[in-house]
């Protein structure tokens, strides 16, 4: 059917009209999508772009067996957006029924609402129950504009007080304040990033990119064994309670590689409640308690004397029947001894005998020996409170310093330094610095470098003498049936107001099995009441801990008599 001219023209007009429309659309699309693309994107970003700061989660702290010691989880904090004080007051009044706040906190919030502060924290890091209650309240009262929640992280210490002094604790903003949390804060906390996000009209993110990359916190693996730490803390607390002692510390170390298996201090605290604790509880005594070590220090005197061949094990010393006047000072023994051999001086812990050994050694050699055993300097543990102790240079020694240093006075040490010194005997004469952190993130910590301090023969001789201390000397209460234990007791007067007082520090250091040591333990009790000799106070605690550790690590006695079955 032929179209007439009129119809054809009409068709052409419609066609051209559509063509122009399509071309217009095309041109506009090209303009919007290609020519003005950058400009349009800039405008979109201006309207919908938001920059978010991302706060990384702290890394988790594990023990040597992968048991979690500290972990961060999400928690919400509640705040008030105070645009209309009357409405805010009403909401706050309601939420106080669901939230436990102290009267001071309440007063402060009321004051801030009335003052017209726009942003007011109600409570940081709510518990799950509190958060549920408040979200219900928010919905019920339609208070979304007034009551808000901010997502944060909360540090949890699932083991409670266990290893509190090692872990330390964090502040309200998750910053490390004490212990490993503080010392390795840079690694554990990671680094916050910045994220640029594009939001649509419903405030939903449809595009995001990192402006500054977010570095998550690294996980930290400690050498501590939670089970041993638990045994140790329980036994220590029991002893402190029984003796009404002021405090105490126990260090348990793997004799061969210096790994710390436990490091306990008492009194203790809950790391999750660091802010509310007194400094006395937070103090990590294992690394920061400074005291005169007393007779445990004879370890250094005797080892140095044997190493320098200034005396021999059977050499006899006149112990002056328990009292020796020396340059205006009096040296006394805990009981009178006449003549004692070198070995007996250690076994029965004669101060006079030890002083005479030190005289043979001479002050220069003695100072060098003390220093080589690691005294007067930090062991290098990554703990912020570690003390270096106090060892005067030999030029500042008085006339009687050599004598008093021989049995552990005129020097200040820390329990960790004493553990390190005892471990020299357990490790065949090598000083192995203690190690607390085995891995940070994916990087294994460096193994400590062992340094030979005394020869094999000196070491064997000293171990044999220290075994006798436990079997027939002052350390009998540390003995374990069927197991060779080597150790030394110590009892030292405490300095109070610059003078030696009638308060004591009782200690015992030792290791087992003496033939092939696996565990070194050092115990110190601060100011026990009624009884105070290291052999009566610290040695039994050493035995209790050693027995638990022995079973746990399967270090069984060589023979346990009738309780032995042969199959």
């Amino acid at each position: 059917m032929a179209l007439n001219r009129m119809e054809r023209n009409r068709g052409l007009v419609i066609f051209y009209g559509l063509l122009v429309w399509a071309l217009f659309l095309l041109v506009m699309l090209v303009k919007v999508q290609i020519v003005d693309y950058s400009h349009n994107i800039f405008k979109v970003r201006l309207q919908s772009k938001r920059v978010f700061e991302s706060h990384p989660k702290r890394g988790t702290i594990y023990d040597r067996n992968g048991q979690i010691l500290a972990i961060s989880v999400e928690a919400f904090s509640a705040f008030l957006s105070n645009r209309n004080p009357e409405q805010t007051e009403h909401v706050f009044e309601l939420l106080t029924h669901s939230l436990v706040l102290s009267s001071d906190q309440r007063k402060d919030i009321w004051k801030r609402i009335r003052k017209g502060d726009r942003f007011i924290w109600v409570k940081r890091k709510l518990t799950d129950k509190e958060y549920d209650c408040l979200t219900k309240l928010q919905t019920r009262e339609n208070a979304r504009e007034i009551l808000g929640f901010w997502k944060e992280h909360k540090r949890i210490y699932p083991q409670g007080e266990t290893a509190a002094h090692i872990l330390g604790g964090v502040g309200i903003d998750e910053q490390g304040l004490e212990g490993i949390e503080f010392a390795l804060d840079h690694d554990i906390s990671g680094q916050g990033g910045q994220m640029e996000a594009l939001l649509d009209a419903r405030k939903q993110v449809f595009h995001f990119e990192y402006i500054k990359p977010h570095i998550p916190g690294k996980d930290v693996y400690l050498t501590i064994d939670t089970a041993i730490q638990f045994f140790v803390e329980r036994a220590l607390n029991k002893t402190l309670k029984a003796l009404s002692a002021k405090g105490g510390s126990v260090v348990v170390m793997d004799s061969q590689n210096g790994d710390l298996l436990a490091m306990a201090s008492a009194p203790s605290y809950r790391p999750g409640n660091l802010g509310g604790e007194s400094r006395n509880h937070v103090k990590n005594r294992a690394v920061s308690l400074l005291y005169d070590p007393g007779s445990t220090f004879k370890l250094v005197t005797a080892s140095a004397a044997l190493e320098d061949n200034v005396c021999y094990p059977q050499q006899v010393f006149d112990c002056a029947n328990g009292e020796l006047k020396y340059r205006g000072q009096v040296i006394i023994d805990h009981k009178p001894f006449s003549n004692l051999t070198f070995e007996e001086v250690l076994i029965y812990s004669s101060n006079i005998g030890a002083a005479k050994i030190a005289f043979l050694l001479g002050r220069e050699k003695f100072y060098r020996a003390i220093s080589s055993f690691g005294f007067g300097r930090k062991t290098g543990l990554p703990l912020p409170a570690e003390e270096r102790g106090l060892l005067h240079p030999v030029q500042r020694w008085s006339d009687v310093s050599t004598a008093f240093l021989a049995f552990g006075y005129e020097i200040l040490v820390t329990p960790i330094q004493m553990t390190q010194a005892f471990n020299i005997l357990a490790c065949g004469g090598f000083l192995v610095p203690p190690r607390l952190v085995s891995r940070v993130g994916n990087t294994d910590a460096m193994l400590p470098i062992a340094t030979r301090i005394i020869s094999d023969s000196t070491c064997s001789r000293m171990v044999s003498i220290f075994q006798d201390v436990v079997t027939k000397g002052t350390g009998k209460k540390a003995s374990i049936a069927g197991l060779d234990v080597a150790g030394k007791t110590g009892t030292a007067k405490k300095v109070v107001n610059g003078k030696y007082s009638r308060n004591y520090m009782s200690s015992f250091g030792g290791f087992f099995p003496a033939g092939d040591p696996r565990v070194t333990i050092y115990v110190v009790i601060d100011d026990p009441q009624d009884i105070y000799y290291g052999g009566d106070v610290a040695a039994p605690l050493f035995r209790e801990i050693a027995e638990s550790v022995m079973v746990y690590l399967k270090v069984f006695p060589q023979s346990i008599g009738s309780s032995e079955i042969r199959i």
Partner: protein
Amino acid sequence: MKKSAKELGVIFLSVLVIFLLLALYLNLNLSSINYGYQLQRLSNERDSVREEIDQLLARKASLLNLQRVEDVVVGQLNYQYPQGDQYIKVVVE
């Protein structure tokens, strides 16, 4: 007239092709936005799964707290710590 209709057809087809190409380009752009939403949703999901894992690990660690285990075992189940004479060494010859 016949030639002119053919030319018009070519122009129309060209415009249509360009139009389709632009529509395709637009579609790709819209898809990328859609993928942005999906990516964000999956990223949130991943974060919440990670968080849930951490919450569960924290819960598990709290349940394995040795003090708690001891309280249950000694306090509720009346177990006792073995005494010295209860250790028996088994020697396999």
